[in-house]
């Protein structure tokens, strides 16, 4: 008998489902009950579809009883960021502009998740069009941080993060153009991976910036992120950016020794370029000690200044986002929330030369990082420079004022994993580290992240409101 199935990891729940000690219906019902208890406080969903979820859970249960267990995601409740198209269910980008938009088809990755047997419980709130938030002028309020509901979840995959941390679902999709999987994962205590650019199809996902957008999973553990990524991956010939590469077994190397792996510490990113808060700095030093105790070699590497990556990323993102939204911003600006409207509109002030120069600088930065990674298996820095801020005090132009510590891996396209590295003593808010790997070396990143997670006890703690 499982006392609270919502707090199981995907791996644990999957094992119990496969041995018929846990029913997908029982698990889905528990997640629905958790949602009904907490969603008024956390505002995670923009479209909650419990009836559809229960129907899918019953079908999964029948299939498993008949002896067909599809794999680790079969019967596992998950939710989708509301920029992933779902056939017959509105996909709005959390914007009034698209509030009545109902796609005819699932996004490629959503179809893959359904094939894996995952149970989709609904659509999660996001920063509007994955850029504007936290906003209080949209059709539902912004998601709140379950570790302290007066704080932001980070963005833009905000509802996804709050829901996973509280067991409303066991995993969720996010998207990441400048850090939108890794920032909320960091601030809500999750494991979230932005995979290599091109590993996952983005077809059927509302774009923000096509050359920087990445899809990816957000879960409670690194192992769960590997399992969910497996279900989402596969070549899509209809996404021109999707790489035709073999998909490895992402969880296959978890647990293998990491002794001898070399980790490049980008100390200047979090100590000088964007000085992290003391608890984050302490967490990184503690993580270095953990990796050394596991037999890893940790050495410092120097990359170009963080602000160079931020400038390239923001100019490309703003230009591409403006090109997408230009017509609607002119015709119906009142349908956008203030923050998304203003952030996207700023792209209209850039020139063609700005965009081309950013592309050229991007190529140079990619070369510099590739050179720094010679002999290095993974890079290490902060997941977020600070714990979660008060939700009503996030500056509109923050991304321009302080360089993002996640953007370098959007600019370079490298896989990057944010994972919990402890809790601020005073507030109990999560802090996080970030591990980045070589292109398509997700298995190495997962292996290191999992080894760190196993050597620490951060996964034993859940948000206090679950005890209330």
């Amino acid at each position, binding site marked *: 008998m499982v006392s609270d199935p919502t707090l199981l990891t995907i791996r644990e729940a999957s094992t119990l489902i496969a041995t018929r000690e846990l029913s997908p219906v029982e698990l889905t019902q528990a997640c629905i009950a958790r949602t009904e208890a907490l969603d008024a406080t956390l505002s995670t969903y923009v479209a909650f579809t419990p009836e559809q979820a229960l129907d899918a859970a019953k079908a999964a249960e029948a299939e498993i009883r008949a002896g067909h267990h599809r794999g680790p995601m079969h019967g596992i409740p998950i939710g989708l960021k509301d920029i992933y198209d779902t056939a017959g269910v509105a996909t709005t980008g959390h914007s009034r502009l698209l509030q009545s938009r109902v796609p005819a088809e699932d996004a490629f990755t959503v179809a893959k998740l359904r094939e894996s047997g995952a149970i989709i419980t609904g659509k999660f709130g996001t920063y509007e069009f994955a850029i504007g938030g936290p906003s209080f002028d949209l059709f539902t309020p912004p998601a709140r941080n379950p570790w302290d509901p007066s704080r932001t979840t980070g963005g833009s995959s905000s509802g996804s993060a709050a829901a996973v941390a509280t067991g409303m679902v066991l995993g969720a999709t996010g998207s990441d153009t400048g850090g939108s999987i890794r920032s909320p994962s960091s601030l809500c205590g999750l494991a979230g991976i932005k995979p290599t650019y091109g590993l996952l199809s983005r077809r059927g996902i509302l774009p923000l910036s096509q050359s920087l957008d990445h899809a990816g999973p957000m879960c409670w553990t690194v192992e769960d992120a590997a399992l969910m990524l497996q279900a989402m991956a596969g070549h899509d010939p209809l996404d021109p950016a999707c790489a035709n590469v073999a998909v490895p077994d992402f969880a296959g190397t978890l647990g293998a020794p990491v002794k001898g792996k070399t980790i490049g510490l980008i100390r200047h990113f979090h100590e000088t370029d964007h000085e992290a808060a003391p608890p984050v700095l302490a967490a990184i030093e503690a993580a270095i000690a953990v990796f050394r105790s596991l037999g890893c070699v940790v050495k410092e590497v120097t990359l170009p200044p963080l602000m160079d990556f931020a400038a390239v990323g923001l100019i490309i993102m*703003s230009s591409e986002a403006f090109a997408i939204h230009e017509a609607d911003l002119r015709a119906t600006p009142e349908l956008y929330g203030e923050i998304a409207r203003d952030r996207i509109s700023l792209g209209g002030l850039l020139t063609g030369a700005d965009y081309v120069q950013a592309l050229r600088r991007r190529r140079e930065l990619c070369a510099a990082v590739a050179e720094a990674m010679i002999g290095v298996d993974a890079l290490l820095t902060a997941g977020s420079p600070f714990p979660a801020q008060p939700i009503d005090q996030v500056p509109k132009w923050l991304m321009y004022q302080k360089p993002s510590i996640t953007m370098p891996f959007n600019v370079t396209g490298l896989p990057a994993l944010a994972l919990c590295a402890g809790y601020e003593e005073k507030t109990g808010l999560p802090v996080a580290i970030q591990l980045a790997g070589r292109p398509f070396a997700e298995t190495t990143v997962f292996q290191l992240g999992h080894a760190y997670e196993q050597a620490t006890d951060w996964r034993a703690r859940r948000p206090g409101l679950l005890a209330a």
Partner: protein
Amino acid sequence: MPTPIASEAEMSALLARTGFQLTPEQIAEYAQAYGYIVEMSARIRGERSYMAEPAHVFGFPNEEAAR
């Protein structure tokens, strides 16, 4: 390279190119934010020769290449 906008009139002229209808308050806010763009666009420009690798290249669409 763009130069910082000093006045509301200059900002209005720049914004006219975007086709937006904005209030004076919005124009003032964009003027402030535009400073960040100026900083960033300066940062990405370096000494590059005419022959430097152009990062943006043309590629045939997959369907075209498959024919």
